[in-house]
C-alpha cells in the first residue's frame, strides 16, 4: 500500500476529515473537553462559562458575491460560538500572507473584517501576521479565534438528540458553496447567487429566549446539511429521517446544482443552522426564527428516530427512501 499523505479531501468536512480527527488529533490531544467534538469548547474559569473556538479560512476567490474572506472569517467563528448558545465577545485574527499580495487587497479585506465585527458587536482584540515566500501560500489565509459567554445551565450538544425530536433548518441551503463555485469556475447565471455568509448569534439568542427545549445547534458549513445530520445521528446514537419536499433550495441554486452535477445537501452554507428540538417546542421555535431576518424560511425538515444509530435517510417526493451518506471527500463533478 502507498504511504498515507494528506489529500485535499481531508479538508472537506466529510469522512476523511473525521479520520484525521480520529487517527491523528484526538490521540495526540485527548481530553474530555475536546472529546465532546462540538463546534466550540465550553470551559469554566472561576465560575464563568466561556465558549472558545478557532477557525481558519482559505477561500478562493478572496472576494465573492455576498462577502469576502474577511467577513467570512468573522461570521464563521461567531457562528461556531453561537452554536454553543454563547454570546460572542472577542476575536483574534491571524494573517498568513503570501509574498507579492497587493497591500490594497489586504486593506480591503481588513476593512471588511472590521466592518463585519463591528456590525456583529464583537471586538478584535489581538492578532498576528506572517509572510511566506511566493508559492508557499495562496495569497492570503486568515485564522480567527473567538471567545464568548455561555449561559448558565445551557448544554447544547450533537449528542443530545432523542427519538421523536424535530429537525429544524433555518433557510434555503447551498447558497455559499454555489456562489463560490460559480465564481471560481467562471460560470455566469441569469440570477447571480450570493453567499449566505452571516452571523447567526442573534437568531440563536431569539431561539433560546423562547424555548429551553433546544438540544443541539449546528451550522452546516463544509460538507453541507448531510454531514451535519450524519454527525448528530452518530453522536446521539439515533437515526434521522428528512423529507425531500421540506428542504428549501433556491431555484437558482437548484439550477446550478443540476448543471454541475452536485447535490445541494452536500453544499456548504455560511449563514444557516440546523436545530434539534423537542417535538412539542418545534412550532414555537420555528415561529421565533421566522420573526428574525436570518430565519424567515425556517421550517421542520425531519424527525429523529429510534434504532439504526448513525443512519440518515431521506424520504423522496415519490415516497421512497434513500440513505443520505456522509461523503468521503469533496463532491466530484461528474463526466456526463
Amino acid at each position: 500500500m502507498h504511504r498515507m499523505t494528506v489529500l485535499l479531501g481531508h479538508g472537506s468536512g466529510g469522512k476523511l476529515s473525521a479520520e484525521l480527527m480520529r487517527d491523528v488529533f484526538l490521540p495526540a490531544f485527548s481530553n474530555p473537553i475536546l472529546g465532546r467534538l462540538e463546534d466550540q469548547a465550553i470551559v469554566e474559569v472561576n465560575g464563568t462559562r466561556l465558549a472558545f473556538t478557532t477557525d481558519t479560512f482559505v477561500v478562493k476567490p478572496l472576494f465573492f458575491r455576498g462577502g469576502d474572506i474577511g467577513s467570512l472569517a468573522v461570521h464563521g467563528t461567531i457562528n461556531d460560538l453561537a452554536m454553543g448558545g454563547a454570546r460572542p465577545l472577542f476575536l483574534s485574527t491571524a494573517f498568513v500572507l503570501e509574498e507579492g499580495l497587493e497591500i490594497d487587497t489586504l486593506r480591503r479585506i481588513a476593512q471588511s473584517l472590521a466592518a463585519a465585527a463591528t456590525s456583529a458587536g464583537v471586538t478584535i482584540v489581538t492578532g498576528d501576521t506572517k509572510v511566506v515566500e511566493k508559492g508557499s501560500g495562496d495569497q492570503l489565509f486568515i485564522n480567527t479565534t473567538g471567545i464568548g459567554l455561555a449561559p448558565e445551565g445551557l448544554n447544547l450538544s450533537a449528542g443530545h438528540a432523542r427519538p421523536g425530536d424535530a429537525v429544524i433548518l433555518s433557510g434555503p441551503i447551498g447558497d455559499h458553496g454555489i456562489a463560490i463555485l460559480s465564481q471560481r469556475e467562471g460560470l455566469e447565471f441569469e440570477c447571480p447567487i450570493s453567499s449566505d455568509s452571516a452571523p447567526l448569534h442573534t437568531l440563536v439568542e431569539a431561539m433560546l429566549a423562547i424555548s429551553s427545549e433546544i438540544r443541539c445547534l449546528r451550522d452546516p458549513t463544509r460538507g453541507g446539511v448531510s454531514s451535519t445530520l450524519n454527525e448528530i445521528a452518530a453522536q446521539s446514537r439515533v437515526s434521522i429521517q428528512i423529507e425531500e419536499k421540506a428542504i428549501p433550495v433556491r431555484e437558482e441554486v437548484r439550477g446550478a446544482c443540476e448543471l454541475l452535477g452536485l447535490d445541494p445537501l452536500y453544499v456548504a452554507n455560511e449563514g444557516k443552522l440546523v436545530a434539534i428540538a423537542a417535538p412539542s417546542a418545534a412550532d414555537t421555535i420555528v415561529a421565533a426564527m421566522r420573526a428574525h431576518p436570518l430565519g424567515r424560511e425556517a421550517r421542520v425538515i425531519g424527525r429523529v428516530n429510534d434504532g439504526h444509530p448513525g443512519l440518515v435517510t431521506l424520504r423522496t417526493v415519490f415516497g421512497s427512501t434513500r440513505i443520505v451518506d456522509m461523503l468521503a471527500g469533496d463532491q466530484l463533478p461528474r463526466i456526463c
Partner: protein
Amino acid sequence: MKYLDEYRDASIARALAAAVARRITRPWVLMEICGGQTHTLMKYGIDQMLPPEVELVHGPGCPVCVTPLEVVDKAITIASRPNVTFVSYGDMLRVPGSRLDLFRVKAGGGDVRIAYSPMEAVRVAREHPGRQVVFFAVGFETTAPANAMAVLQAAREGLRNFSMLASHVLVPPAIRALLDSPGNRVQGFIAPGHVCTVMGYREYLPLADHYRVPFVVGGFEPVDLLEAIRMLVAQLEEGRAEVENQYVRSVTRDGNRGAQEALSRVFEVADRKWRGIGEIPQSGLRIRDEYAAWDAERVYDVESLRVDEPAQCIAGEVLKGMKKPVDCAAFGTLCTPENPLGAPMVSAEGACAAYYSYRRNLVCIG
C-alpha cells in the same frame, strides 16, 4: 424548475408505475445501460415503486467504471511528469490505478486539475505555452464530440503543447458482447439517452432485429425512466422487439450530424479494453494518425503499457448485469467509496457507489 419539475412529478410517476403493474403478467429482466440512469433509479428509489416482476440490472454505461486499469496507469504516468499539467473530469481523480490514484499524484506535487470541459484544457495550454497540457478524455459517444472539437481547435491554433489521452468506448459493441455472453439474463434495454442524442438510435435497429430484444431510448429523470420501463414492459408482454424512443425531447433517429462529423474527423473505431470485461473488438475510439501530434499515448510513449486487473473485484460481472453490487463479498467492507477496489465504487454513476450511497442498509429498515 421548468423542464425538470414536470419530469419529477410524483403523481405522474405513481401513475406510470401503476400502469406497469397493470400491464405486467410475468417477470422480466431489464437493463438500463447508462450510469446516469442507474443513479436516478437509486436516488429516487424508482425500483421501490415498481411491481416485483420488474428486475432492473445495471449496465456498463459508466465511463469512469469501464476505463481500464492500464489507461488509469497511463494517466498517472503522464501526470507524474514534472512539466505536465494534467486536466481531467473530477470523478476520474479518485479511480484507483494499480498503485496510486490521480489525487495522490496531486498530493505528491503533480499539477493535476479538474475541468468541466476539454476546452478549459485547451485554454490552459494557450495561456501556458511553457507547460505540456494533457486532457484525460474518457467517456462514451456522449463526450467524444467535445473532445474531438478540442483536438480540432488545438490543431487549428497550432497548439503543440496540448494533447489528449483518449479512452473512448462505444455502446452498441458492448451490448452485442453482453447479448452474446452465455450467462446473459437481460430481456430488454433502456438505451442511453445522451449517447443517442449524439448518435441517434439508428445503430440499435439491427441489434433489436438480430437478437429479438426490445430497446427504449430513455431519458434521465424519474418520469423518463418510468415511462421507458412501461414502454419496454408493453413490448415484452406483446412479444415485440422494436426500438422505441421515449426521450423525444432530445433524441432523433439520426442524431446530431455535426457532432458525428467532428467525432469521425478526429477519431477512428478501434479495439478497446473495458475494465472488468476485457477486450471487445471495435468497441472504442482512437485518435487518427493525422492527429497523432495531439495523441498523448504517442507523445508520451505509453502505448505499450499493459496491466492486469485485480482478481477480488467482481466489477466485470456487475457491469454485465450478471451480479448486483451487494452480491460482492467486498461490498461495503473491503470496498467503500473511501477505499474503492474497483471503479464502480468510485463514480457517482457507478452501480456499486449508487448502491452504497443510497441503499446500503436500507434492506433492514423495511
